[in-house]
């Protein structure tokens, strides 16, 4: 992470969104909107004085801790470890920016004079030869499955919340504690929350079994609590994963084969998990004081918009569609645009790194070649026949046609690098002025005649 932050060939554009992509393989033009941080990053040293001074002491849920802690309006991302390690002022929380009334103690506190409430968004234009889309995943929100009672007790956590609790940089400094501040004595871990489920996602999210086993290990290791693992199948197919599964079994975790069906919050605040133990063939009820819902990876909420921005498609599950499931697993159908990581499908860390490295290899190959071959199977305009009616302009799905004004009227021209030779303009042209070089009228008529030449 820090390597990427200080590499001389990498320019970081954080707090930024890609808003427009045009051009084609080898010559993309990209517009990026950089949102204001209200802090001059060239001056900010990340000392945190402004964070201390921020008057918004009530705080809002800290995204980085999956809501388990609070942050102020001014904060350094990643609980102070962000890259870049610079303050950001969240305009929706900041009292000055959202309500126009504040003592602005942050300005007084900043020794570097870095705070700038007049900062505006900036549009950055970039020229690139290739694009890697690595937009990642969203965590499934277990509120969508009401049987798990998520949100009804602070001791029902999702997978990411447990990660934060167990992390040394998290809200409990790595201690696994119930909301009452005690070590749990019995913990239930429920697999497949939001995956392999007709009511959520049908796909297997691939990583949850292994991180659930890791969570079981961490609970045993840090608290000694009894752990009940509710699973349908254990999918431990990665390198060294099966061995890890065996290790966790040996650590004394109870494995209950059956989907966790329901979590009940009892009157005394204790929790009860109901399931069918399919090996015993009986329904079971287990009382616990903490439940971890091992939630699935889902496509990012805005993946439809991102897909249309970069001209890529999505598979039935909503993840981005690779060009071929086996032979082109990090390519898209837009040449020069590649996929990396979990935006294509759920992946664990090693697979993500491998996928991203492979996508980078494709980019290096393309940039190293220095030139790209543009297919000649494009449309061609006979300018002597073109009446300049512009019928084709609006029809072109690739925005490859432009209008050239000439003495009161004009003609259209095709950008051959953008044209995919789909033939839409050819069929629509009322003057018959456009030919698809690889689908001429003669070729099509000959093909039809050939088709019906035999009885």
């Amino acid at each position, binding site marked *: 992470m820090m*390597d*990427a*932050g200080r590499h001389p*060939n*990498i320019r*970081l*554009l*954080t*707090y930024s*969104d*890609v808003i427009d992509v045009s051009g084609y393989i080898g*010559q*993309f033009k*990209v517009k990026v909107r950089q949102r204001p941080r209200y802090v001059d990053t060239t001056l900010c040293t990340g000392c945190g004085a402004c964070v201390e001074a921020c008057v918004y002491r009530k705080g809002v849920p800290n995204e980085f801790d999956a809501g388990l802690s609070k942050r102020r309006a001014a904060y350094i991302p*990643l609980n102070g*470890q*962000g890259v*870049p390690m610079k303050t950001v002022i969240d305009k929706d929380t900041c009292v000055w920016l959202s309500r126009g009334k504040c003592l602005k103690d942050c300005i007084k506190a900043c020794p570097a004079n870095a705070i700038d409430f007049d900062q505006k968004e900036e549009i950055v234009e970039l020229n690139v*030869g*290739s*694009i*890697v889309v*690595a937009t*990642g995943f969203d*965590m499934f929100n277990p509120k969508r499955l009401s049987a798990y009672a998520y949100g009804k007790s602070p001791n029902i956590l999702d997978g*990411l919340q447990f*990660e934060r609790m*167990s992390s040394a940089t*998290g809200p409990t400094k790595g201690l696994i504690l119930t909301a009452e501040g005690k070590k749990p004595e019995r913990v239930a871990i429920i697999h497949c929350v939001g995956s392999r489920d007709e009511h959520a996602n049908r796909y297997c999210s691939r990583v949850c079994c*292994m*991180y659930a086993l*890791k969570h079981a*290990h961490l609970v045993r290791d840090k608290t000694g609590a009894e752990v009940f693992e509710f699973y349908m199948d254990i999918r431990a197919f990665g390198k*060294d994963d099966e061995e*890890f599964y065996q290790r966790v079994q040996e650590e004394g975790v109870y494995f209950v084969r059956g989907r966790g069906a329901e979590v009940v919050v009892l009157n005394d605040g204790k929790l009860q998990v109901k399931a069918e133990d399919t090996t015993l063939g009986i329904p079971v009820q287990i009382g616990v004081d903490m439940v971890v819902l091992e939630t699935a990876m889902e496509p990012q909420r805005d993946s439809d918009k991102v897909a249309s921005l970069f001209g890529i498609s999505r598979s039935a599950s909503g993840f981005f569609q690779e060009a071929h499931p086996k032979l082109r697993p990090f390519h898209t159908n837009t040449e020069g645009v590649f996929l*990396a990581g*979990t935006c294509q499908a759920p992946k664990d*860390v090693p697979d*993500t*790194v491998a996928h*991203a490295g492979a996508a*980078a290899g494709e*980019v*290096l190959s393309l*940039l*190293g070649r*220095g*030139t*790209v*071959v543009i297919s000649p199977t494009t449309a061609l305009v006979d300018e002597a026949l073109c009446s300049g009616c512009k019928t084709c302009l609006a029809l072109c799905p690739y925005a490859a046609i432009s209008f050239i004004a000439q003495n009161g009227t004009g003609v259209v021209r095709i950008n051959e*690098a953008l044209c995919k030779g789909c033939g839409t303009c050819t069929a629509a042209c009322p003057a018959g002025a456009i030919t698809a*070089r690889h689908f*001429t009228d003669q*070729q099509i008529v*000959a*093909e*039809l*005649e050939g*088709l019906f030449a*035999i009885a």
Partner: protein
Amino acid sequence: MTDDQIRIGVYVCECGINIGAVIDVPEVVRFASVLPNVTVARQFKYMCSESGQKMIQDDIKHLGINRVVVASCTPRMHEPTFQNAIAAAGLNPYYFQMTNIREQVSWVVEDPAQATAKAKRLVSAAVARVAWHAPLQARKEKVTPAALVVGGGIAGIQAALTIAEGGYQVYLVEREPSIGGHMAQLDKTFPTLDCST
């Protein structure tokens, strides 16, 4: 060849038993060999294989074949294979027509007689079409020596570092105020329990 006479080679693929078990391939070859402008028609177990491609290249060199029709599978996969093969033998790669007798015939038509009849029609159409093909020339365009990586999680960081190490400019765009993504939120990672950050 110095003359501009059209000399078509037709190559019918058996695709193992994918095509050969349903379509009467020898019959399709016999039919194709007497179509107008056809100089030679052949069949082979796997036309996309090295030896299949060489068969076509040899005919271009020795029989002066100047138009090629391959009746096999979907062009999505192997059209570039055959176009590259005929280009390597000195023929313009657009003097080529592929017709799909696997997905559109042998995999979907159950009756062998009907399947064979349909395959013949498709071959006849491809032969008639390829006679009208023109030599097209691909163009080359320059590549801007820079890359955009969208997303600063572990995938984006890995891709950005690899490309940057190769000596190219990388723009790494992240919508959050810090890179790191979900990876930065994780505690230890399975199965080795090493730290994630």
